[in-house]
């Protein structure tokens, strides 16, 4: 992109990694990238939710287009010792000690290599890292490579939380594949006991480290020596996480007049069938919720979502950030009209739908940036029902279900369907409930400009 003053399609593309690294592609003036590299080092006994935190942080960062990766020391160790017994983790077992140390070194080496190759900004070192000596070694190693360290300790003495984590682990951990769950749980408890003997919590001796210590799932938090904005952002995210059980319900608005005509965008009223969906929604929600839990309803500020939610007897909140993707000059056009008037654009959008920004409008990437406060708020909240629009739903869904950027803009999210998402420790469960009210399909396959596609 060298032309000035003349329109060039590249100009509309938002470069990748935009969030914290102003990309070199935005202009020809040689942008200095912010070269912050952060290694998030997990600290804590087994069954304290370290892997859960690591997994969530990576998912959140990916969603924001910040390249992040987890390096799980357990996985390195498993290549040599696939199903170790608790004895392996006894510190007096020198062979076990040696192998565990080797696994940590291999993980750190790979991580440094990953950074050196410019692959990402944030790595997460998922291991117990339970001694001061081990932590100092990691910090010095990272320091030498110009990588910042952020230690995240999860400390928890609440027996209920630990037990539920143990139950989760014994059923999902690769260490216990094919073993009797009862004896697995027993062995796991012994393993924890071995760690407890040498475990040192982060304390005053480590005053110079950058760390966050989460005690009893965020009830008490100590944050030390935060160095930059990105670190503060990760800490903010961690503080918003909770583990209380809850679900999130997602629905598109009822079918609109624009949907009927195959037009995109706009601020149209509901169609007759859309109106029927609005009336059916309270029953549908009741069926899906199952009990008398109180939900909070979030809508966009556009008529069709407000009208769809209006019969729900819960507290309601209108968010500007939940408004549909702004399709710029194409607002109010059908896909066929877009193809006719802006043939190049139409093609461009198909090639990279996530990054394509409508002429004067938004891209999916832009939408994700404006949805970030919504996600933070969702992490913090309990039971929420969101009534919003196709593109917005795709982005929120992608966050919870970890859908990659190449796929998320192409996901089919049918009208008149209630989606229930229930986050669990290692994945999110999904249920779909269809209202028995017909609607047009607004899904458009790559390359197609058909007004309505037959639902598959």
């Amino acid at each position, binding site marked *: 992109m060298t032309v*000035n*003053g*003349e*329109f060039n399609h590249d*100009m509309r593309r938002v470069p990748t990694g*935009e969030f914290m690294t*102003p*990309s070199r592609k*935005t*202009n*020809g*003036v040689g*942008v*200095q990238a*912010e070269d912050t590299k952060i290694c998030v080092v997990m600290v804590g006994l087994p069954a304290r939710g370290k892997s859960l935190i690591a997994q969530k942080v990576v998912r959140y960062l990916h969603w924001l287009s910040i390249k992040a990766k987890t390096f799980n020391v357990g996985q390195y160790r498993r290549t040599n010792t696939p199903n170790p017994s608790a004895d392996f983790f006894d510190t007096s077992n020198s062979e076990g000690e040696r192998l565990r140390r080797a696994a940590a070194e291999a993980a750190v080496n790979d991580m440094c290599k990953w950074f050196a190759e410019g692959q990402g900004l944030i790595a997460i070192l998922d291991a117990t890292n339970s001694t001061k000596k081990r932590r100092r070694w990691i910090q010095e190693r990272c320091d030498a490579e110009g990588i910042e360290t952020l230690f995240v300790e999860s400390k928890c003495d609440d027996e209920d939380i630990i037990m539920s984590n143990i139950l989760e682990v014994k059923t999902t951990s690769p260490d216990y594949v094919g073993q009797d769950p009862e004896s697995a749980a027993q062995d796991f408890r012994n393993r924890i006991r071995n760690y407890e003997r040498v475990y040192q919590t982060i304390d005053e001796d480590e*005053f110079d480290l950058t760390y966050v210590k989460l005690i009893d799932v*965020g*009830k*008490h*938090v*100590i*944050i*030390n*020596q*935060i160095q*930059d*904005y990105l670190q*503060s*952002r990760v*800490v*903010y995210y961690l*503080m*918003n996480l*909770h583990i209380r059980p809850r679900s999130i319900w997602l629905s598109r608005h009822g079918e609109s007049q624009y949907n009927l005509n195959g037009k995109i965008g706009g601020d149209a009223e509901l169609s007759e069938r859309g109106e029927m969906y609005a009336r059916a929604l309270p029953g549908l929600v009741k069926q899906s919720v199952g009990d008398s839990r109180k939900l*909070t309803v979030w809508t966009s500020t556009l008529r069709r979502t407000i009208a769809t939610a209006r019969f729900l007897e819960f*507290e309601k*909140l*209108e*968010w*500007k*950030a939940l408004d549909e993707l*702004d399709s*710029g*000059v194409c*607002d109010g056009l059908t896909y066929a009209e877009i193809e006719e008037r802006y043939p190049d654009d139409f093609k461009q959008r198909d090639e990279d739908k996530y990054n394509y920004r409508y*002429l*004067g*409008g938004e891209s999916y990437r832009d939408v994700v*940036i*404006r949805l970030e*406060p919504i996600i933070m*708020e969702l992490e*913090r*909240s309990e039971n929420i029902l969101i009534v919003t629009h196709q593109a917005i739903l795709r982005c929120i869904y992608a966050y919870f279900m970890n859908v990659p950027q190449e796929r998320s803009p192409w996901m089919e999210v049918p009208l008149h369907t209630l989606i229930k998402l229930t986050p669990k420790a290692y994945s999110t469960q999904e249920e779909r409930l269809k209202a028995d009210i017909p609607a047009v399909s607004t899904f458009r396959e790559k390359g197609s400009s058909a007004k309505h596609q037959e639902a598959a």
Partner: protein
Amino acid sequence: MDTLLTADVAANSPRFRRRSSTFEDAIHDLPLRESMAPAQLYSTESGRLFHSGRIVIATVGLPARGKTHISVAVARYLRWLGVKTHVFHLGDYRRATVGPGKDVPDDYFFINASPSSVLLRNKILKKCREDIYHFLEHENGQIAIYDAVNAISAGRRSLAKEFAKHNIQTLFIESQCNDERIIEENVRSVKISSPDYAGWSDEDAIKDYLARISSRIPHFETMEEPELHWIKLINAGERVVVNNCAFGYLSQRIVFYLLNLHIKSRRTYFARAGTTKEENAYKADASLSPEGVDYAKKMSDTLIRHREYERQAIIDQGGPDNALKPLTVWTSTRRRTVETSNYLASLGYRVRQRSQMSQMNPGVCEKMSEHRIRLEYPEEVAKHEADPYHHRYPRAESYHDLAVRLEPIILELEREQNDLLIIAHESVLRVLYGYLMACNATDIPKLEFPRDEILEIIPASYNNEAKRIHIPDLPNNMIPGSPQDLQIPVPPSGTTSPLGSLGSPNTTGASTPATGYQTPQPLLIRKTHVDPSS
């Protein structure tokens, strides 16, 4: 004995309602009419963001620990987010009660104070608390910041209990310092400027001030109470301890903000980008014209001269030789701003590009004359004039959109320790200025940043101050806003001259139908110029 004397001005006016103008920091004003705040995402009928109730934030800490600075900074951020917030400085009430020039009795802060001191103390506290209740219960206030010492644990517990009776949650923010240098620095920059210490050497004044604190407030208990909600900042944010704060959206948000806040004083300068070869094309991302390059040099030279002049002034007043902090430059990723910084970069100043700082997207109005916009979008123009802050032209961004997009920049702005020059488009400068000076959202689109001025914002713990620095010898045609500004926001009809029509005093009030509160005079105040060349 604490906070700046300027606080007296506020304290003596009833209920702290001052009229502000846009070149004054309005952080201590209560907005006279309800309007959306700069970065507010939604609104409710009660005016409160309903997923978090009413909260009193009470500060805890000895004098000279930056409590007032933290109170004001948190209020600034919360208001920006649309949370109706007001700061109640107990010191203001103390001064207003004992009268000008007088001080409270020596045993005022003692646990075993004399009955007369206790009575005085209770009288002052009562007045302040009444105002807090009034604000939260009758003025739709959501957060009251109670800026006081709150030194004793038992007192804090009963404070929280009392507020709880009114269904108000209490969140304590303690500022603790065990680094003597931070305390001394704070005393130097905030406390000893008072007339009490005229003629004293800095060192003696600091010593005297600290001795007065320890003799007058001999008892202080740091926060340990497990059942209370508190945030403890140790050594200006070096460490932050958060206890029992997962109860609300706002408390987490405040922690996030505090993680980026520091209490060191530094300056912020705003400058426009130079003119380009393709002045009115948003999408073109054009390079600077030769005049633009010339502007960049003159602007930079003016700034460097001005900073040298200020440094000398501080040294003349007996300040330290290293009075100025290093200067960092932020630009957007648009060519014109980056190229405007090139001259400074060649002199060795550090330049950072920030993608969020690109200008407001003008949408369909790009390259259109005002006349044509009026002709083609009469309805949009009418909507725009009714609410220039929130209105979007078709496919354009509103100022509100821009403010939400700039939030990470606001936090990084707080984090930055060096002096900072921001070179950006006028729309971005308006929004950032609106944050730093607590402008009303409705005033933000009218702020004016002519190209022949650099704006300097000098922070102080009680309020920020803005100053304009004139850039001499610029060609006249460069000084008015860029052509884009002449189109968006559209000036009120009937204004014939396109130049200077924006933001200039609008006597008819045509552009702000919500009357009753007019910005008296926008920023173009020549007499506030500092001309470093003179």
